[in-house]
């Protein structure tokens, strides 16, 4: 069986998911997100749906936002303000890695059950999308650092973007105008909030955000 080039690069994304589960420092996690952002927004170019000019513009816009602007701004943010560099795991790194492996197996198994004709040529596409989605949620729940949580959220969005852009033209239109607004708005607001959390609490450990119970 000949591996499609898209699958080769997606296998790297799967590895990066494992890496993100094992890394303890924020800069590493940011690089993983940037890499995933770039790959995920490049994939639509290699998958045979017709692209009109608008589609190309959107794809490049996502590439720049996901791959460059967001990671850069978070990177600058943690440089400028003295935010802790540790991701402060709730679930330890070894346990996280094991979860990650299990997740990839489960994602591959699940996507075999679901038969989507338009992307059946690309073996790793749907598994990667599921893995990104669930891995993002995992980081959201299993890390205490607020920036790590935001990065987890972006990883989740990358997963949705990967499904949406590749399944069909119609779905791509949805994620195109949906996700841009989503990313811009969500992250901007989160950044502002983070800044304020910083000011109020001195660091972004959300364990400090535990006065309201339940």
């Amino acid at each position, binding site marked *: 069986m000949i591996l499609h080039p898209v699958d080769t690069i997606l296998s790297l994304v799967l590895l990066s998911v494992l890496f993100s589960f094992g890394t303890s420092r924020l800069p590493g996690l940011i690089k993983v997100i940037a890499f995933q952002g770039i790959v995920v927004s490049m994939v639509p170019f290699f998958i045979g749906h017709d692209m009109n000019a608008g589609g190309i513009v959107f794809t490049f816009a996502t590439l720049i936002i996901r791959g460059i602007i967001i990671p850069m701004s978070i990177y600058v943010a943690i440089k400028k303000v003295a935010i802790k560099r540790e991701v402060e795991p709730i679930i330890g790194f070894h346990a996280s890695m094991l979860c990650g492996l299990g997740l990839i197996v489960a994602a591959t198994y699940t996507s075999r059950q679901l038969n989507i004709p338009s992307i059946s040529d690309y073996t790793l596409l749907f598994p990667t999308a599921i893995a990104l989605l669930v891995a993002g949620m995992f980081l959201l729940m299993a890390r205490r650092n607020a920036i790590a949580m935001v990065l987890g*959220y972006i990883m989740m969005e990358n997963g949705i973007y990967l499904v949406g852009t590749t399944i069909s033209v119609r*779905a791509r239109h949805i994620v195109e105008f949906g996700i841009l607004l989503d990313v811009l708005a*969500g992250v901007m607001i*989160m950044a502002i909030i983070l800044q304020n959390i910083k000011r109020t609490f001195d660091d972004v450990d959300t364990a400090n955000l535990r006065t*309201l119970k339940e």
Partner: protein
Amino acid sequence: MVEIVFLTPFITGIIAFFLPKAISRKLLVATGAIHLFLSLFLWKNRPEAIFNNYFAVTPEGLLSLLVISLLFFLISIYTVAYLKESEIQKENIFTGSMILFLSTMTMVTLSDHIMVMWIAIEATTLASAPLIYTHRSSASLEATWKYVLICSVGIAMALLGSVFITLAMDIGNVDAPLSFSALTQVAKTLDPMWLKAGFVFILVGYGTKMGLAPMHTWLPDAHSEAPSPASALLSGVLLNCAYLGIFKTNKIMHAAGLNDFSGTILIVFGLMSILAAATFILKQNEYKRMLAYSSIENMGIIAVGTGIGGIAAYGAMICMIHHSLIKSSLFLSSGNILLGYGDRFIKNTGDMVRRMPKTFVAFFGGFVGISGFPPFGIFIGEMFIIVGAFRTGHYITAGIFILSLCVIFAGFANQVMKISFDDSDSNKTIGLKEKASLVWPQYILLLTSLILCFYMPDTLYQTIIDAVTAIGGGLK
């Protein structure tokens, strides 16, 4: 034409950010009045939208729109009085966000396109986040952070759900616009498996916003930290808007003949919410959190009613309207209690019947209404839901439903009695004069609810029936 209803508050909202305090307060009330007028006009004439691929006037949308409009107008009158009594920094941001929030919620009620609906619900999160952060304390910051994070995840799930619905169209070879009304017509040809997947994700996504358990965790914090007028809006209308997204998707499911599937899921989520509310309401020591849990309960009730269908779906609609009216009045009264006693804990209040008699009338009246006593509408709605559950053989559902309602009533009553009749520290002075504009909005809301029980105008009745027929409901 239709678009004017949400464009007007959008423009005035942006203007309000730049105006001095006094004028922006007037603008708030003026926008409320204009919006109410426009909504009534819309109700009467039901015009076509200019962008009719994206917007449409639907019966369920109209119902929500009218509720939003009436509530906002009354709340805006209260807000002006509330702002005079309380100290809020950067008041322009508060009033501006309130108006923008109105605009985004109006857009939700009028949207017909799946993505326009999604964008509008996303926009409600953006517009309401500053409202929760109004007090700028660390607790309100935590509540805002939780709200934005959890709702963003929810909205992302809803996006994935929308993607799955397009996949259902592709696999079923359907060529139709991506609007709820068009999809409802071609629902039979959609691929059922992906339609189901889409529904589940949309339910989880918008359900987060609606406050269904177990995704409800942001709700008590946000409602208790926001200033009372904002909590009244959040609870009274925002939750309905999110429900509208679920309702419209459920319409597609019903048309596709998958209503058993969607109904079961709605019942499960609804019961979980009612149970969660029953568990947590018993030990609440803050009155605004208590009201927030009661909102979760009512959203659960509405979800259960929608899930059962038939006469229960009609009951759910009745519950939705009356819950909005009564709960927003309760939140406004809780604002008076907060201003009066200067404390959010139940144990530091007390003897409200003598110390704040006018607020007491509104608060106690609201409590009687929300806990489902006759003659208020919640009673009628819950009655329909229980009858519907028995008719369709959902005996266990009905059992859990009734039992939880009893527990919630007991917990709620206990706390309300403490606030109203317990001895309070007599040295403490009440820091609030009960001006007319601080109590009349609540009275009017409760009266509206009361009147609707005895006399429902034909046009309103017909609109409710039109709305629920599409999901297999009705009075038969």
